């Protein structure tokens, strides 16, 4: 039977199993383009049909298939077609579409490990149902030859089924034993094997008790736990990969023939690269041409844009704001400062690796205890009765009864329920012990820029200006895509201001916008260019003719739910701290606005990490919430960490939990759920322990029949699962 269950080895195993390989093969021979688009807004049958029909009608598209579960569409098209050609088609049909980088997603294409587990689970389920039927006949009084027949049939079903299904446990146990260690899989494997051996022995001797049903039911319950565990993690992993895949690493290389679009991986030192306004620097380099402003907040936490002119160094990850720039690459790929910082983080010891999960701690206590107990009852009974068969039977019964069925389900059942609940609220749990660590948190450290604030400016002093000034300022602001101009535009338009008629509006990248108004020059832009004074706030200056320059001041807009989150965390008794690389004045005003007592400004990345280390040394369990590259070291050092979806890839990788939405509101909820989940896990351990306390003496005394073993095992597994479901 096992032979038919194994997937047949096809001529090209990789082809049948991994579409990713197929895709790679297609890249070598471009007969077909494979494009994957993310469709975050589709939700119904009509949406799927509309998108598929629209794409199917587009020229060059061979087939399009929507996956509603993952909210994606995969398209097979002619090789010259690119995602840019197809996104307008989908958007024309009324749905948002983003390109996904297929190379970054390859791992999620087929979940081979999950499939294998499911197959083993199916076989174990099938076998345990059949064997249970036969066992019930034996328990209800089958005798003599009938009982032997039923035992033999059970053996024929169970032996191959266990040989196939229980392989993951055997393999893990073998690896652990080879490393001279004990894990949960050692007692599991021993119990399954010993149950099989004694039952076979009993059956050959026409004995009364056989534990075939226990061996296979054990495998089934434990596989269920493994599968739940795997599912939770693979859902999180694929969602995390999708976030990474949304940033398609592409750059525009300037060549003598013109501009070409290349993958960032193909860039070399010395290449000239064109970076459009709004684009992110793909590599480290020197500005060769153009002036603009740079947003470095993801790297340093500074909110004020920096002026950029030829000759200036830029680092990968900075965002170009106003004018087009051409940069000459000085470091690419792994040599960029972005990567070097990310690598440093990988070296640092993380809060994650220091933590031992509850399950591991239970296993450490449990595994030796079980072995000793089983061995003692074997020796005791052998000395008492002198009968090897009886002694072995009882030792097997003890192992079966104590086998951590409920323990194996206790943690995965709870984490699956909790992760599912949090995922619905927009939180992605990436690490399997994240919930347990989150539950212990007593101090929360927030980064400022991009975390508590949305990274978009908001005008603060609209009322200080006359209507005429605002009309001129609005007209000038409309001529630029700079974030400050956009903030000014939306604030003025909300106030019902209409733009003044201006002539000759032009944007001077890196400086501001200039125009003619009734023969006078009007300017809106940087202080130095307009002739304004000094201010420690983010400001854009307006000057009309020869009049005095006036400052529009801006503050960083708070992220949705920031105030409520800080308040809820403080009310829950957590210490909230603000740490930022930004100037003291801005950090202080924000801390004041949110009611945060402790704050740290102008912090370098090392300062943040060191501060968190110091807090940990004082016995605090720190939750770090941050998004920038300057936070990654702190995210790694903290006991638990959260980053928003807008964070840099490096920061998301370093954190345990990713916030999928734009609001911070789920954070207090996450802490609550994590605490509840940990409580459930501990309750589950207690339940499992009580079952053992009641059943083990029976087993040791030799009173445990296979029926009692089956009842105890099923009852404890089901209680534990139901207890976990209370979380939903």
């Amino acid at each position: 039977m096992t032979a038919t269950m194994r997937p047949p080895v096809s001529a090209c195993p990789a082809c049948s199993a991994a579409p990713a390989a197929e895709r790679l093969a297609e890249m070598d021979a471009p007969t077909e383009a494979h494009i994957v688009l993310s469709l975050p807004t589709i939700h119904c049958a009509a949406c799927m049909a509309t998108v598929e029909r629209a794409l199917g009608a587009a020229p060059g598209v061979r087939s399009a298939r929507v996956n509603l579960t993952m909210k994606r569409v995969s398209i097979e098209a002619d090789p010259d077609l690119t995602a840019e050609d197809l996104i307008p088609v989908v958007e024309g049909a009324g749905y948002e579409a983003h390109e996904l980088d297929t190379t970054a997603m390859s791992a999620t294409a087929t979940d081979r490990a999950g499939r294998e587990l499911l197959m083993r689970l199916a076989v174990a389920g099938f076998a345990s149902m059949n064997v249970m039927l036969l066992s019930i006949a034996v328990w209800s009084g089958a005798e003599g030859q009938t009982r032997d027949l039923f035992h033999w049939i059970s053996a024929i079903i169970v032996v191959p089924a266990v040989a196939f299904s229980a392989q993951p446990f055997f393999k893990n146990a073998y690896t652990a034993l080879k490393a001279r260690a004990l894990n949960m899989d050692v007692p599991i494997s021993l119990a399954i094997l010993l149950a099989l051996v004694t039952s076979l022995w009993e059956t050959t001797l026409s004995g009364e008790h056989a534990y075939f049903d226990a061996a296979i039911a054990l495998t089934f319950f434990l596989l269920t736990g493994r599968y739940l565990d795997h599912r939770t993690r693979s859902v999180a992993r694929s969602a995390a990969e999708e976030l990474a895949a949304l940033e398609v690493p592409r750059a525009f290389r300037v060549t003598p023939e013109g501009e070409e679009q290349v993958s960032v991986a193909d860039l070399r030192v010395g290449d000239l690269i064109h970076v459009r306004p709004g684009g992110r620097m793909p590599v480290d380099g020197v500005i060769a041409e153009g002036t603009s402003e740079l947003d470095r907040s993801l790297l340093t936490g500074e909110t004020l844009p920096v002026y950029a002119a030829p000759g200036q160094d830029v680092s990968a990850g900075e965002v170009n704001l106003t004018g087009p720039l051409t940069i000459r690459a000085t470091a690419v790929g792994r040599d960029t400062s972005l990567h070097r910082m990310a690598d440093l983080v990988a070296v640092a010891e993380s809060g994650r690796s220091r933590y031992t999960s509850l399950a591991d701690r239970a296993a450490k206590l449990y595994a030796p205890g079980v072995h000793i107990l089983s061995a003692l009852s074997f020796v005791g009974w052998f000395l008492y009765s002198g009968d090897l068969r009886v002694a072995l039977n009882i030792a097997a019964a003890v192992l079966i009864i104590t086998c951590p069925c409920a323990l194996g389900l206790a943690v995965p059942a709870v984490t699956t329920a909790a992760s599912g609940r949090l995922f619905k609220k927009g939180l992605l749990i990436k690490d399997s012990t994240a919930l347990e660590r989150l539950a212990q948190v007593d101090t929360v450290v927030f980064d400022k820029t991009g975390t508590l604030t949305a990274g978009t400016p908001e005008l603060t002093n609209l009322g200080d200006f006359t209507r005429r000034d605002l009309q001129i300022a609005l007209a000038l602001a409309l001529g630029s895509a700079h974030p400050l101009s956009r903030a000014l535009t939306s604030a003025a338009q909300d106030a019902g201001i209409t733009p003044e008629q201006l002539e000759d509006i032009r944007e001077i990248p890196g400086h501001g916008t200039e125009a003619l108004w009734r023969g006078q020059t009007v300017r809106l832009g940087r202080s130095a260019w307009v002739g304004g004074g000094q201010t420690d706030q983010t400001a854009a200056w307006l000057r009309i003719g020869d009049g005095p320059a006036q400052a529009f001041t801006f503050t960083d807009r708070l992220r949705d739910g920031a105030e409520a989150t800080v308040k809820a965390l403080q009310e829950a008794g957590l210490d909230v701290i603000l740490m930022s690389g930004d100037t003291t004045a801005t950090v202080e005003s924000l801390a004041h606005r949110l009611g945060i007592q402790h704050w740290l400004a102008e912090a370098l990345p090392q300062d943040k990490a060191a501060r968190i280390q110091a807090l940990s040394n004082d016995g605090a369990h720190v939750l770090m919430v941050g998004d920038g590259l300057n936070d990654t070291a702190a995210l790694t050092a903290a006991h638990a960490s959260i980053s928003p979806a807008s964070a840099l890839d490096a920061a998301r990788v370093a954190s345990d939990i990713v916030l999928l939405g734009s609001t911070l509101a789920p954070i207090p909820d996450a802490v609550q759920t994590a605490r509840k989940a940990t409580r459930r896990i501990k309750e589950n351990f207690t339940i499992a322990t009580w079952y053992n306390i009641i059943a083990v003496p029976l087993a040791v005394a030799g009173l445990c029949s296979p029926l009692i073993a089956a009842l105890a095992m099923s009852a404890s597994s089901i209680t534990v699962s139901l207890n976990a479901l209370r979380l939903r």
Partner: protein
Amino acid sequence: MNILTYLIPISLVLGGAGLLFFVFTIRSNQYDDPEGDARRILSGEYDDKPKQ
């Protein structure tokens, strides 16, 4: 007791058939998009056979 010689093989064969069907559904990617498939049956577009 002779009835057992029929019943036991029958129950095993039926269970085995169910298992084989399950294996077939796994191998033909039928669990890749459960939500989408649940909605697709409501649409008249795929009545003859699933769109490839």
